[in-house]
């Protein structure tokens, strides 16, 4: 069984959500992860609060980021175990982040040799 990383990409643009809506998203995220865990396929997850971030460029240039320059930001990721790419994609389809217009979840296989 391979491991996959599911990366949440958020379209930038502050859409004002009500606290109730935020609560729903949080619960849906918990349920989504709970569902993957129930199959014994959840490995780990990290949320990135977009704070204190820097971007390091070639030639040692460091900027505050990733704001302004790029339209989308990475909100977090989870890693899962899956029997196939298709299964990993099925997991990704359930991600509540996708309810946001323009948001996406990138699915990448983790290379595990060595």
């Amino acid at each position: 069984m391979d491991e996959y990383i599911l990366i949440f990409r958020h379209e930038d643009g502050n859409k004002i959500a009500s606290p109730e809506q935020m609560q729903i998203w949080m619960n849906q995220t918990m349920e989504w992860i709970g569902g993957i865990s129930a199959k014994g396929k959840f490995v780990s997850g990290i949320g990135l609060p977009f704070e204190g971030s820097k971007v390091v460029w070639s030639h040692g240039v460091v900027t505050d980021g990733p704001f302004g320059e790029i339209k989308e930001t990475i909100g977090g990721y989870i890693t899962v175990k899956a029997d196939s790419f298709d299964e990993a994609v099925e997991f990704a389809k359930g991600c509540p982040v996708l309810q946001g217009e323009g948001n996406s979840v990138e699915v990448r296989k983790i290379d595990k040799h060595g």
Partner: protein
Amino acid sequence: MQEPALIPHLFRTEYRKVIAVLCKRFGFDQIEIAEDIASDTFLSAALNWGIQGIPENPVAWLYTVAKNKAKNYLQRKATFTNKVLPESSMQANTITQPDYEIDLSPQNINDSQLQMMFAICHPAIPPEAQIGLSLRILCGFGIEEIADAFLTNKETINKRLFRAKEKLREEKIPIEIPAPEALDNRLASVLTTIYLLFSEGYYSISNNKVLRKELCMEAMRLCYMLVENKHTNKPPVNALLSLMCFHASRFAARIDKNGEYVLYDDQDTSLWDPDLISKGAYYLHLSASGDQLTKYHLEAAIAYWNTQKGDTPEKWENILQLYNRLLQIEYSPMAALNRTFALSKANSKQEAIIEAEKLQLSNNHFYFTLLGELYTGIDNRKAKQHFEKALHLAKTITDKQTIQKKINRLG
């Protein structure tokens, strides 16, 4: 599972603190950015807590994230300024490292909230906008809730808030507690807004019972903040808080299971909240110092007598005198009608009818309801005519139901 409404709860208690501190720090020029940072913090929480679970101390988590977001913003802004104005960056070496820290200590949160209260309730801002801004920024209400409270839609509220913020900027309203010589005047307009906020909840025609009660509680909370601060703890503030405590004590009794208003005379007194009544008395006592007699003092005293259920001559004589003085300070049709009702109780219905007919408030349904009341038992035919006029003029279903009940009682 987790507490189902953690985020709305935290939003209600923490959003207003973060926004007050950030606004104070950034100024009204950047109020939208302060709002974005505060909202964004909660969005981050929803996502992160969804993935990693709820942290041990959610409030501390929110503060840390809000601080970092604000710091990022300030740093970026400084970088931008330096790029645009390269000569100033030349001097940067000699200037001490700028401070990007955001102070979210309880003391600064409290100070910032009070200062915001004075800024938002500035006389230059139209009252409707003051209430909208207060609900959004001082109370952390969502746009939807505000729209619900005003029985309008989100677009209208957004437009109203937008214009109000423009006004704050145009007028260059400072975020500070006014100087001692200006304090009493400015405090008066803060109290007016708090009073309107409370009335909005207490008399609102919105069907959302929970929301209405929350409006009242928020008004009381803001007033309590003023009482807690040594600069703003003045007699009128105590009087207003007392008044609101007395009114709020009847919350449970004044609306029945079906959401219908229960008239004062029909209220189940066991549902009155004795805690709030004694708090009301406590603040009324504290308000009785200094030489200022405000309408809040008089209304609080009237409200006190209304917590005494029995129909004693002493009670109605006192209420009558209080209304007489209230009308001298500030005339309002409602006060005039209530004064006439008190007159009927203190003296006689006949005397009150003579006074009532002088008022000529012929487009006010409460006026005809009062006349109906006064004629009941004296001339039921006339009573019915007045009630029917009232029924015709009444706009809300609740008012119509109340009047219809009175007609039915006449038989």
